[in-house]
């Protein structure tokens, strides 16, 4: 049987991309697989009775070392905002290349808590900050100080003790450029360092509640139970700043998506399935159905999606329970899901399928990075007719869109002067559209296409470029899409109907986030590493922790 990759025009629609779930390919899971044989150590825990001070965690293998330096500071309730516009945080983190000296710690202490307003150096690799989930933090410390374990109903409804906001890397604010570390074997997957920072920051949150509880009541305090801690992740609040990334990095996006599609294709192409494999899938399915109950949100959009998911999973369970194993069993299962369930459920089933076949999926996680510089220049000797044909082939979905219509150009993306973060506004009632960021891809390709139609087909592109450079950035991505067909979101990112959280969800699902809780159409809270091994257990991880029951 000849089974093909799912087509880009099916996969790359935003409503499907915005329904992706974490999987074996997710970066936090590949981080644990990669680093499970490294040594993890708490090197310094210099905290006062209120938990203010600093901690250092060190990750070592042979002569390689990375350190997370955490700073914990006092923060008034009125100053606690988990949005990127904040200027102070309960905790701030920096990932250091090697082991920091006392001098380094002092330098970092003066800068890291300031985040965007401070300066770091090329010795530092990633920067982040987090705020306490006040209701959970106080409850946990209070109970531990009394010698009791916290109420897991309260804990698991939130899922974490601290929420991070931004995690910065790759040269921002003076951090090391990616070029400095990209050839290191252990970093051959996207966002490895960011995932390391978040994993170690999670350990810091446990050490913090244990420390403060002990300080409050040295005689009575107990430590947070490992089973409870393991089921706590670390939260994250993400706003629009993350959305342009997936538009600005088309080659990288292609690698993420094609890896998933290759995994699915390989699984659908398996001719013979064993009863054991079927049962394994069933057990993951049963677990996730239970864990979904902990996905809490006030967002009507997400409530509706979760409801569809629950109903679809029920429908799917009925179908799957009665299904006998036959040739190309998983292909039959997938095809049924694609036709009979909505994207939210269909994509969850794809993630579950990947769990059954680690030997197929895990190697693909090494294909998820790419040298984007290789795709920067394009071939100007190609004929204008070629370029038009390429647009018709790869961008057929946008050729007919009428960009004179207000709703199709409703939004514009810009950089906020105040926070230096991308934002989106209504171009017809807000100021600033003249400073629009180049993220109106569909509109600009459409304009370029209409313009190129006026030039002789046989002329080389270089002739057009002598006098026309307005769409050079667009030409670059058209040629990327020719080679890498999963590089482009196939939706209009400035239309009135755009749901930006779908763009956030796409990226966060590849990070490995769960419990999507949109706070509006452009801001979402999620959880990372919930259920993951604790720092001291990482070397025992068999990468099945994502599908363990939460409670």
């Amino acid at each position, binding site marked *: 049987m000849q089974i093909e990759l799912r087509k880009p025009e099916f996969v790359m629609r935003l409503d499907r991309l915005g329904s992706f779930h974490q999987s074996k390919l997710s970066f936090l899971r590949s981080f644990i697989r990669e680093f499970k044989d490294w040594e993890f150590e708490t090197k310094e825990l210099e905290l006062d009775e209120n938990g203010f001070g600093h901690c250092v965690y060190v990750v070592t293998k042979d002569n390689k070392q990375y350190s997370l330096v955490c700073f914990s500071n006092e923060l008034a309730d009125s100053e*606690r905002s988990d949005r990127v516009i904040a200027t102070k945080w309960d905790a701030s983190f920096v990932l250091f290349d090697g082991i920091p000296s006392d001098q380094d710690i002092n330098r970092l202490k003066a800068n890291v808590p300031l985040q965007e307003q401070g300066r770091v150096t090329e010795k530092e690799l990633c920067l982040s900050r987090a705020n306490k989930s*006040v209701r959970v933090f106080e409850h946990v410390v209070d109970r531990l100080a009394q010698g009791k374990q916290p109420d897991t109903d309260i804990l698991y409804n939130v899922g974490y003790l601290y*929420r991070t906001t931004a995690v910065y890397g790759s040269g921002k604010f003076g951090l090391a450029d990616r*070029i400095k570390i990209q050839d290191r074997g252990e970093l051959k997957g996207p966002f490895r360092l960011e995932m390391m920072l978040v994993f170690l920051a999670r350990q810091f949150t446990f050490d913090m509640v244990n420390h403060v509880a002990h300080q409050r009541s040295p005689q009575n305090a107990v430590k947070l139970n490992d089973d409870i801690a393991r089921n706590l992740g670390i939260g994250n609040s993400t706003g629009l700043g993350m959305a342009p990334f997936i538009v600005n990095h088309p080659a990288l996006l292609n690698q993420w998506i094609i890896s998933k599609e290759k995994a699915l294709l390989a699984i659908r192409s398996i001719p013979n399935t064993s009863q054991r494999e079927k049962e394994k899938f069933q057990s993951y399915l049963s677990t996730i159905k239970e864990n979904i109950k902990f996905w809490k949100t006030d967002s009507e959009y997400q409530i509706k999606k979760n409801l569809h998911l629950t109903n679809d999973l029920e429908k799917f369970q009925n179908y799957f329970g009665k299904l006998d194993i036959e040739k190309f069993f998983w292909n039959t299962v997938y095809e049924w899901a694609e036709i009979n369930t909505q994207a939210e459920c269909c994509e969850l089933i794809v993630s579950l399928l990947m769990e059954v076949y680690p030997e197929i999926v895990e190697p693909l996680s090494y294909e998820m990075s790419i040298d984007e510089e290789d795709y920067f220049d394009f*071939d100007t000797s190609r004929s204008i007719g070629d370029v038009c044909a390429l647009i018709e082939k790869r961008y057929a979905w946008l050729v007919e869109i009428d960009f004179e219509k207000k709703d199709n150009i409703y939004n514009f993306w810009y950089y906020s*002067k105040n926070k230096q973060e991308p934002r989106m506004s209504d171009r017809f009632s807000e*100021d600033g559209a003249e400073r629009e960021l180049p993220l109106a891809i569909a509109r600009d390709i459409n304009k370029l296409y209409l313009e190129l139609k006026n030039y002789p087909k046989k002329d080389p592109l270089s002739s057009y470029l002598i006098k026309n450079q307005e769409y050079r*950035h*667009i030409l670059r991505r058209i040629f990327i899409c020719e080679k890498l067909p999963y590089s482009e979101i196939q939706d209009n990112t400035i239309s009135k109907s755009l749901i930006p959280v779908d763009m956030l969800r796409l990226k966060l699902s590849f990070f490995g986030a769960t419990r999507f809780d949109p706070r509006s159409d452009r801001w979402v809270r999620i959880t990372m590493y919930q259920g993951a091994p604790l720092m001291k257990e990482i070397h025992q991880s068999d990468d099945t922790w994502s599908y363990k029951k939460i409670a």
Partner: protein
Amino acid sequence: MHSLYEIETVVKRVARYQGLSWGIAEEAGKTVRALEQSALPGLERFDRLISFPYSKCVREINHKEKNQKYLCPIHFGLFFLDQSHKPDNQLTFQFSNILEPLLIIPFLIKAAQKNLISFDFKSNEFKFFIGSGKIISLDTNKIPHQSNDITLEISNQRIKQYSDETWDRLYNMSLETFVEENEEKKLLGAGAGLTDND
């Protein structure tokens, strides 16, 4: 010192602010980054270029016109990057004057490697030769048969090639591509409340 990422981003935004298309602004950012990475003063030269002032630079390159003056090196470099695939390139071009010629070098290196050609640049003040290989240009007449009293210094530290004043000037200019937000817009743009004590 600033990271190469910061340098590239600031130059891209300043180039955009100077009226260049996003595509050319991206090229300018990459070019200055490449020079800084090679310990050459790309940022300083870029700053001088836009202070010329940039509005007086000639951006449309006409290779048949000998008397073009004040040519923009970014457009000049891009012209040869874009056009040098053409087979009639065994030619000598003459121009009267080009500003900050250092900035054309990364473009010509790419063009030479891509099309297997060479560029022999000669002017009153400055000469260089770029071939299609990866070896840097040497004066072949002066290659000795032996070298004595050799010092070879290796460093993984980048050397800062620009002043703080230049950086501040360019950085502040790059902010001109940003949009000022009032309080209402801050809320609408990001989409949620301001405190999160939950």
